[in-house]
């Protein structure tokens, strides 16, 4: 159990992530424990080999692939931007044309419609009022006027 605790400290010591107190404590333990000294040697060896792995040069196709990739993306974005603009213009055009057509139809219907409603008190309305009522008399008088006018 004691050694397990120091194993973690050894790993942290290699990475210089250890306090002075921990370092002293570890040093004391290592002076008394062969297994932990061997363990430290193993970790240090693996770390040294790892650190010593040399980076290789990346294939030259990486840079060209990336740059052509971003130009394609740029083109896509430009196309998308142009498409948005075109859709906006088309929408405005449709609205303007729609408004024009609406006005035209409104004017046309205004000409066709007979604005004179000349017979709202037609005799048929008499039936709506009981004989002798004010409504009946007014409607009858209006109907009479109309007939006289003709």
């Amino acid at each position, binding site marked *: 159990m004691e050694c397990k605790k120091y*194993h973690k400290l050894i790993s942290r010591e290699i990475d210089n*992530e250890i306090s002075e107190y921990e370092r002293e404590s570890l040093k004391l333990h290592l002076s008394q424990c062969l297994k932990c000294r061997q363990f430290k040697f193993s970790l240090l060896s693996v770390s040294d080999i790892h650190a010593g792995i040399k980076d290789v040069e990346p294939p030259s196709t990486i840079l060209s*692939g990336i740059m052509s990739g971003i130009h394609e993306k740029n083109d896509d974005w430009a196309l998308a931007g142009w498409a948005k603009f075109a859709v906006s213009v088309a929408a405005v055009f449709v609205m303007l044309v729609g408004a024009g057509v609406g006005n035209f139809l409104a004017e046309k219907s205004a000409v066709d419609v007979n604005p004179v409603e000349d017979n709202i008190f037609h005799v048929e309305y008499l039936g709506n009022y009981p004989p002798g009522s004010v409504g009946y008399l007014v409607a009858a008088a209006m109907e009479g006027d109309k007939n006289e006018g003709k």
Partner: protein
Amino acid sequence: MDDSGLMFKTATGDTEAFRELVERYQKSMFNFFLRATANPEDAEDLTQTLFLNLFKSSNKYRKTSSFKTYIYRIASNLAISFARKKKGKTIVPIDNDGQLNNSSFKLSLLKNPSLSLEAGELENKLKTALSKLPPDLSTAIELRVKQGFSYSEIAEVMHKSISAVESMIFRARKILVVELEDFLDYRND
């Protein structure tokens, strides 16, 4: 111009600034992915994907941490998700103390204490072992040993606590030691 400045220029559509960033980081990124995958083609694909993602999201970049931390965060996420998706990737069951639970993980190395490996051969054994580590462990040990990140920087890159990083690095080292123990010379003691 520093990396962040180049990134901000990239966000305005300056492809020359982006090219400069790629030239600065392509080697370290390619090698990061190469050690994670042990496959040059996969490493190349991942490197390209990384930079295309970086370009695409350049307008979201904020200088809240160093650019190096930022790019390694993207790279780590890519490497870890790639390893998890890739079929046949060996995931080694280990407990919290870094003990191997599956002895079959051991590479089929010759168990011969007197075997003397050339430095290059030992390096190759380690590369193989590194590529077989669980992805988060290989990322953590790579960031520490090869890139020189501190534990707190690794914690930031990997969205982990510092104690989790400490534990991951320790576990990675224990696995690597088990893999190479037959080739390590204890005579110094």
